[in-house]
């Protein structure tokens, strides 16, 4: 009898658990909110409605970073719709890209997930198109039109990010430097880096410039020399060019000739900068959030990346990339998808949380209502970027670009491989990987596009 009762209890528990699927910890809401302001300009969100008929529902939202800023969107939405629980799940980058695609492929996975456009080809088949007014979206967001395919959009950019030089203000002042000393060209940069370097005999005590482990961003500055990443057909990699070699040699000389840093001093540039060991590093805008979170005591400033010749406008200062809005899982159940669609409408019109997100990553905002926001304009990183007109977007580059270029730089810096062979090796790997990906570069779409010099 006891056994029967135990089995019955287990069965009942199983039934209850099954019944809970897709439900959530939120409370049932009987009455739609009223009197809440409609948010947005052209694309609008009206919160004065019941979602999921007021019944509790839970959905997951996966991300690899920025959990605090993204959580703010979820909190704001849940405040309007207390029957909805959005559970944010933060995972390390490597684990994220191992788990997420396979979960999506098996028809599972979170209803919402953050996107990096280097995984565009991987994720695209599993993305549900946004249920939004496209004309209104394009009016409100810069660059949204570029993401519209067959009158559908699966994600857009909420901001634009690129690289720049970050410096430690205390070290800068100690070396007698002021804002007027921001170097405009690489030759001046060399001199500034030397001023900021401290040595005790052969031992570096403070690196003037540290680029260790920053190869995946530093390795693309060949644009300054007028060289594209891809050939004119936009599908053949053309990384093996004099511009890439020249770029790599400049940075190697900073270590080997000018001795402003070392491959053995502060093996990770960001960490070394955060710990106050290195005076300058080159990194992308996301460092702003990382520094505030992990190294809050560092007082830093930024300036635009120097160019070969300050009197000549470079072909491009650098490449940029868009930071993508979350995707909706096409395989999620209908109720969750409906909430995810409603949430994305909210997300795209939530000015305050969007502003904080943009500031966290030091982005040039895509949301036009933030274009003149004084806080964003005052952000030193955004200020340093200047006009984005001379920044080039190579398209949603597959991960092989960054991994292969990083390996090439590591081979040169640490393993003694000569730069030309390393770059040729990287190009070979990229070409082999691209043959399976079908990637086409967006470089020809650059307003100042010109084929690489022959």
């Amino acid at each position, binding site marked *: 009898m006891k056994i029967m009762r135990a089995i019955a209890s287990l069965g009942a528990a199983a039934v209850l658990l099954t019944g809970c699927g897709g439900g959530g910890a939120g409370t049932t809401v009987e009455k739609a909110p009223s009197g809440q302001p409609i948010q947005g300009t052209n694309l609008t969100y009206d919160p004065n409605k019941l979602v999921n008929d007021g019944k509790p529902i839970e959905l997951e939202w996966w991300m690899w970073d920025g959990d605090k800023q993204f959580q703010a969107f979820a909190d704001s939405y849940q405040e309007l719709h207390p029957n909805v629980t959005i559970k944010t799940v933060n995972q390390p980058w490597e684990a994220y890209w191992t788990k997420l695609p396979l979960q999506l492929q098996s028809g599972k996975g979170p209803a919402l997930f953050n996107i990096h456009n280097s995984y565009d080809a991987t994720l695209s088949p599993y993305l549900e198109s946004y249920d939004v007014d496209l004309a209104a979206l394009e009016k409100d967001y810069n660059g949204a039109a570029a993401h519209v395919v067959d009158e559908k959009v699966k994600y857009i950019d909420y901001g634009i990010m690129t690289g720049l030089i970050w410096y430690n203000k205390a070290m800068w002042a100690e070396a007698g430097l002021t804002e007027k000393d921001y170097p405009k060209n690489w030759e001046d940069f060399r001199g500034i880096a030397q001023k900021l370097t401290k040595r005790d005999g052969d031992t570096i005590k403070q690196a003037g410039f540290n680029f260790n482990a920053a190869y995946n961003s530093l390795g693309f500055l060949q644009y300054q020399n007028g060289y594209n990443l891809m050939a004119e057909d936009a599908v053949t990699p053309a990384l093996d060019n004099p511009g890439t070699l020249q770029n790599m040699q400049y940075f190697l000389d900073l270590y080997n000739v000018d001795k402003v840093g070392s491959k053995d001093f502060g*093996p990770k540039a960001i960490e070394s900068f955060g710990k106050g060991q290195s005076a300058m590093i080159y990194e992308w805008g996301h460092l702003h959030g990382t520094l505030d979170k992990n190294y809050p005591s560092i007082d830093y400033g930024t300036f635009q990346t120097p160019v070969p010749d300050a009197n000549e406008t470079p072909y491009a200062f650098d490449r940029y990339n868009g930071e993508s809005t979350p995707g909706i899982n096409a395989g999620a159940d209908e109720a969750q998808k409906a909430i995810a669609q409603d949430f994305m409408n909210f997300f795209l019109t939530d000015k305050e949380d969007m502003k904080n997100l943009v500031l966290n990553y030091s982005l040039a905002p895509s949301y036009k209502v933030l274009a003149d926001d004084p806080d964003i304009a005052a952000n030193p990183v955004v200020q340093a970027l200047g006009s984005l007109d001379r920044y080039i977007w190579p398209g949603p580059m597959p991960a092989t670009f960054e*991994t292969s270029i990083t390996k090439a730089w590591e081979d040169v810096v*640490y393993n003694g491989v000569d730069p030309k062979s390393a770059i040729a090796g990287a190009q070979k790997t990229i070409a082999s990987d691209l043959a*399976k990906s079908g990637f086409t570069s967006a470089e020809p779409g650059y307003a100042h596009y010109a084929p690489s010099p022959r």
Partner: protein
Amino acid sequence: MTLTTRPKADKRPPEKNNVIPRKPRSRKRGNAGERTLRNTVIIVIGASLLLLTAYPIGLAFVGSFHYWNPLSGAFDFIGLENYTDLLSSGEFWSSLLRTGVFSVVVIFFRVALGLAIAVAIFSNLTRGKAIFRTIFYMPTVTPLVAVAYIWQMMYNPQTGAINTFFGLDINWLYDPNFALPSIIGMTIWKDFGYAVILFLAGLHSIPEDALEAASVDGANAWQRFWSITLPLLAPMTVFVVITSIISYLQAFVQVLVLTQGGPGTSTQLISYLIYEQAFVKYDFGYASAAAFVLLIFTALLTLISFRLSAGRKNSLEG
């Protein structure tokens, strides 16, 4: 020749007024219950093995002959192309060689250190054996990821404990001469406690008579160790070596956390290569081919270990 006769059944009726003796539990019924339990267990285990082991292995084997990207749904037959690409790839062979070096060194030190410390703890001269056992086993039960992160901090050339403590100036994880040895060092520290516990169990099972007899015959401690203890620990040593081979040929987490295979590919072990192909480039076909080659190497090495151990056992018995 022996004849067996079936005992005759007692057909006499039970005597009246006598207490009927309790019927002995039916052997057949007992067997039937046992059989049901056995069959259930075997079916469950068999089904689990088929579903969770044989099926994925079979699928991976079939997939190794295809261009297979589960995300795009591509599963195109390409024959032996993945294998020919793999076997003609310098990166694959250097990763395999590196994996071999890593495994041999770690296994050697795991066995040598494990045995030495087990013998030291087992000695009658050692007090507080339980404390030592616990201390040495502790790294084994600590999660590898946590250990790897701590060692990453310790290996920092400027702020790490190792350079600071020993007054060195080595970029442990980025100097190609030190990166792999650094991973090896961490792995030995993490895992030798497992061997200590197994060797201690082996030492406890050695008959004391044999050691006492040797002492009576005038053998000193060193002679007793070489001639009695070590040969009698051979089965345990083989067990430690084989489980270590299987485990270290698949070493992955420490590489992922400490170096991501770098600098360049100087610490890329075969499992990391498989991971990169499968989960960074989503080329499951190529990754499956690499996994099968690894499987063959693992099986061969295990077989060789068994053969060597059997040969040694035969020569001892002969």
